[in-house]
């Protein structure tokens, strides 16, 4: 509580976390530069417009910044009040994918609203933060007994199933569950069950991997299984699922300590497919080297640290949980993205927050930051 005193400004009601805003703006600007750098070659080749991806991302970023500002001014308790409608709305958007979904790159994940493509899974991530926070506050005491805990897990799990069932987007489903688990982890005392749960998940994954490896030559392997095999030995699957991963590794390895220089990536020239999306971090490694990559990671760490500070100083439990949800979301996504790029885990389509190309994602993430700023604004009240 002493810290609050330190952070508190003379005008106590209008605390604005400038360092958070600075970090966000830095990441956005850096993201735009990297999107342009990675995509211009291919965009020029395929679309005849080298700035195509850059311009689209720029528009989304501006919209996202506006959303951030709006969200930061709406009292966050209002969100909690409308948590259930928000939950329902996001679920409806997800369901709309079934009839109105638009297929891009073989995945049916987008719907069009007023000429803008929206990825409902991203909206669901925002919704699950707000809804879970509200739910945990509501359950408060009941959270201790298994029934209450199960209730807190059930609603986000329903989202996850919908996201996976409708859009076949496993990574978003994992992130949604992950956000909830992080929030529950903070709001319930004790480590035992989380450690047990984590160990059992690791064990389960281990068993599944062993089964997949042993059944390598049997039929009935779906494409996610091949991804697992490609993860274990990307070179053996260099022409298939391992191609993207292997090319990303080549990019990282060839970057060296200081990289080839901004814009000098060779791997972006058709070797890393869709480099501006999931694999943008590998191009960062190639162009800016270990130095740049670790700087970016430090930037994210700083962001997460700022969010932790805000959560710790939140005026109430709801505010803290909202910020923790945002923090969980960003942490999970950054860690998973970098883990994919470095082939630490199998390839799943996870973007790097604020940096990767993707309109819905950047708007939702900025809205979440707005939520955190909103909470920060109320620090000390």
């Amino acid at each position, binding site marked *: 509580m002493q810290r609050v005193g330190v952070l508190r400004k003379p005008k106590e009601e209008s605390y604005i976390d400038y360092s958070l805003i600075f970090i966000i703006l830095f990441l956005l600007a850096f993201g735009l530069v990297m999107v342009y750098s990675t995509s211009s070659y291919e965009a020029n080749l395929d679309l005849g417009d080298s700035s195509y991806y850059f311009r689209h991302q720029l528009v989304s970023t501006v919209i996202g910044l506006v959303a951030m500002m709006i969200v930061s001014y709406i009292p966050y308790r209002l969100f909690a009040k409308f948590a259930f409608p928000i939950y329902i709305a996001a679920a409806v958007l997800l369901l709309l994918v079934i009839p109105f979904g638009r297929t891009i790159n073989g995945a049916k994940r987008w719907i069009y609203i007023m000429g803008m493509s929206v990825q409902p899974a991203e909206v669901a991530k925002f919704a699950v933060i707000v809804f879970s926070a509200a739910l945990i506050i509501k359950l408060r005491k009941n959270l201790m007994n298994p029934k209450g805990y199960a209730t807190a897990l059930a609603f986000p799990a329903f989202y996850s199933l919908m996201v996976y069932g409708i859009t076949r987007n496993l990574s978003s489903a994992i992130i949604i569950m992950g956000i909830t688990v992080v929030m529950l982890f903070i709001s319930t005392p004790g480590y035992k069950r989380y450690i047990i749960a984590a160990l059992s998940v690791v064990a389960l994954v281990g068993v599944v991997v062993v089964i997949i490896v042993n059944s390598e030559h049997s039929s009935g392997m779906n494409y996610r299984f091949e991804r697992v095999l490609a993860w274990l030995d990307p070179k053996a699957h260099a022409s298939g699922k391992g191609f993207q991963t292997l090319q990303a590794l080549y990019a990282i390895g060839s970057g060296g300590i200081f990289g*080839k220089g901004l814009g000098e990536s060779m791997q972006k020239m058709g070797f890393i497919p869709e480099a501006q999306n999931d694999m943008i971090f590998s191009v960062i490694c190639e162009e800016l080297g270990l130095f740049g990559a670790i700087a970016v*990671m430090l930037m994210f760490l700083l962001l997460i640290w700022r969010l932790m500070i805000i959560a710790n100083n939140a005026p*109430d439990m709801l505010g803290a949980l909202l910020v923790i949800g945002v923090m969980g979301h960003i942490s999970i996504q950054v860690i998973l993205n970098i883990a994919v790029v470095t082939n630490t885990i199998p390839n799943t389509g996870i973007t790097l927050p604020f940096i990767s190309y993707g309109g819905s994602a950047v708007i939702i993430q900025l809205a979440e930051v707005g939520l955190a700023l909103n909470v920060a604004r109320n620090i000390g009240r």
Partner: protein
Amino acid sequence: MKQNARVNKQKFTIGMKKKLVVLFVIVLLAFVGLGVRLILITKNNGEEYEKQVLSQQQYDSTTIPFRRGEIKDANGTTLAYSEKVYNVILDAKLLLRNEKYVDPTVNALVKYFKLDGGAIRNYLSEHPTSQYYTLAKKIEYDQVAPFQDLMTPGTDTYDENIQGVWFEDNYIRKYPNGTLACDVLGFTTGDNIGTYGLEEYYNDTLSGTLGREFGYLDEDSTLERTTIPATDGDSIVTTIDGNLQTIVEKYIKQYNDEHVDNARKGNGANNIGCIMMDVHTGDILAMASYPNFDPNDPRDTSKLIGMPAVDEKGKLIRESDLDSGVYITQEMLDEMPDEQLYQNYNALWRNFCITDTYEPGSVAKPFTVATALETGSITGEEVYNCTGKLDIGGWEIHCHNTYGDGMVSVERGITISCNVAMMHVAQATGVSNFTKFQKSFGFGLKSNVDLAGEARTENTVIKPEEMTPTDLATNAFGQNFDCDMIEMIAAFSSLINGGYYYEPHMVKKIVSSSGSTIKNIEPRILRQTISPSTSEKIIKYCNTVVSNTEEGTGKTARPAGYMIGGKTGTAQTRPRGNRQYVVSFMGYAPADHPDIAIYVVVDRPNVPMQDDAKNATWIVKRVLTEALPYLNYPMTEEISEKEQAELDELRANMVTPSTPNGQEEQAEGENAEGEKAEGENAENTAEEGKTEEKKEDTDKQKNDKKEEKKDDSNIWEKFDVDEATGYYIDPNTHNLVNPENGNEIGGDVLPDFEGEPKANEASEGKSSE
């Protein structure tokens, strides 16, 4: 509501804050772990991956072809040039980006390049990721241009659905004049490498430097793309005069055509070669041999037909020692193994004028005399008694005229080509002087003419320490040592130009692709072989060979209206007694101040009686009749009516426009009507070398001769006449005797040296076939 508010106001407890810190630590650890992983990847695999990245880049250089330099004749006529052509390349990956591209593109390819549409579709379905597949090669620009329009935006026929096709530049070598100067030029193989002739000898000059389009990594390992344009090759200007070359080839071909399948199946001779040279510079004005080939299509088997076949080791095939070879027929070609076929091609492509060695025969006699005069061994006033043979080292060596020529002066020795006289001259000279001069004349040395494939002759002449009196005697009239044509004409030029031995050469200028002169090749005098006064004497002697209308062996070489000099050669081949001859004529013009030399060799002419230099003089006469007016030499001799008729006939087929001859021409024109009656007679004379009509010819000549010198009839003219050939028959030996000079066929001048191991050995090693 109040409770709600209280609940909402739940505080974030210390325990939760602790857990939040734990969460942050976990996230921190995850970041650290990933950071370590990044570092490990860079550290452990950095270099390998860096190489991978570089190797994936398509910076492997592509070469840009150069244009090979041109070969031009002395007048600037192009003999060889390279034309830009295009290879049609299919980029399947690019084409298959969109299904809609496939049909229009394949249809256009079929339409414009007559390609097999089905094959292209097959290839596309089998190799969908291929980016480089050559559909067609060496398509000319006219064919490519309309297709390029299809692909170029802005043209009327532009079709955006034509995708994935591009054109690669290339060059093909073209020889616009077909077979003209083929032996001199050589040809190029597909990859622009010169083979034979100038193309091989000047390959480095003609070849440019390949250009390259390549990517490279600068010091920051950044990929840079650079294009280094190709440097086109330099052109060469030869000393060959295209018109003279055409004249020479025309008459060689005509001789061949008139003698093909004559006495035997096959070409008009095993080889026919002709060189014309400027005696004051060593410039080769024309060089041709037959059989020829078309450098545009050097593997045309039809050119092989009629050639003497060689076996798979390149050795001439013979059924017996007495025949001149086995001549290639279509049936033989059909069954010929590849190795043997290749050897036969080599025989075809070889330039007889520089590659084949043979015994020169009597053409060597002026050298014998020049050596003797120069060394002071004779004065030129000596007179020898020819009894038809001379006994040397235990061998009887005969003269052509086995019945003896009587008293023969040095000059007459040349005129009638008397072997006995030459043997006396050589004996007077001695081995050491003879061999010293032989070397000085360049026999046994490479002439270093700038053509690929010149024969090495150092082992075909007899070394001074090994030369026996018999060798000396036979060498004196050009037997028992081998030379090649270029050696002989270069040496002979020095005899008649005042004694200056010029290095024979083919190229006088090297010009860059932009047209600037890079190098002028000046004539090179290598040495003085004889003194100018000796040279004058040799010219005087050699002039009588042609001008002596009674005894001159080369009188049939004289072109109408001109006086020339020269020397005939009728050389026996090995093994002796095979009745196979290499006949030749070495001529020069004008007779008093020689400027050009011409040397014709007919190797085993396709006639029943080969030992007749008229086979060579026939060609020389016709070439010079056409060449001398072209070279602007005024006529100096009167033209008889018979000759005029011949000239008229010749002019109809002339390569070069006939130059007016002044008054004679005019007078001729006026009398044209009246001379028609003599046309037939003239025609006969024109074809006197044609053996089918030999009998008539020789009868006529015999009659002429009898009329001219009735009292002075030769011994052999009293013999019986052989009906088939018109030759006389020697009652003692039953050999045929040439009615003109008393040559006894089969009664060869040279004994078979088989009994003497040394001579035999030497001749074995020197075999020219």
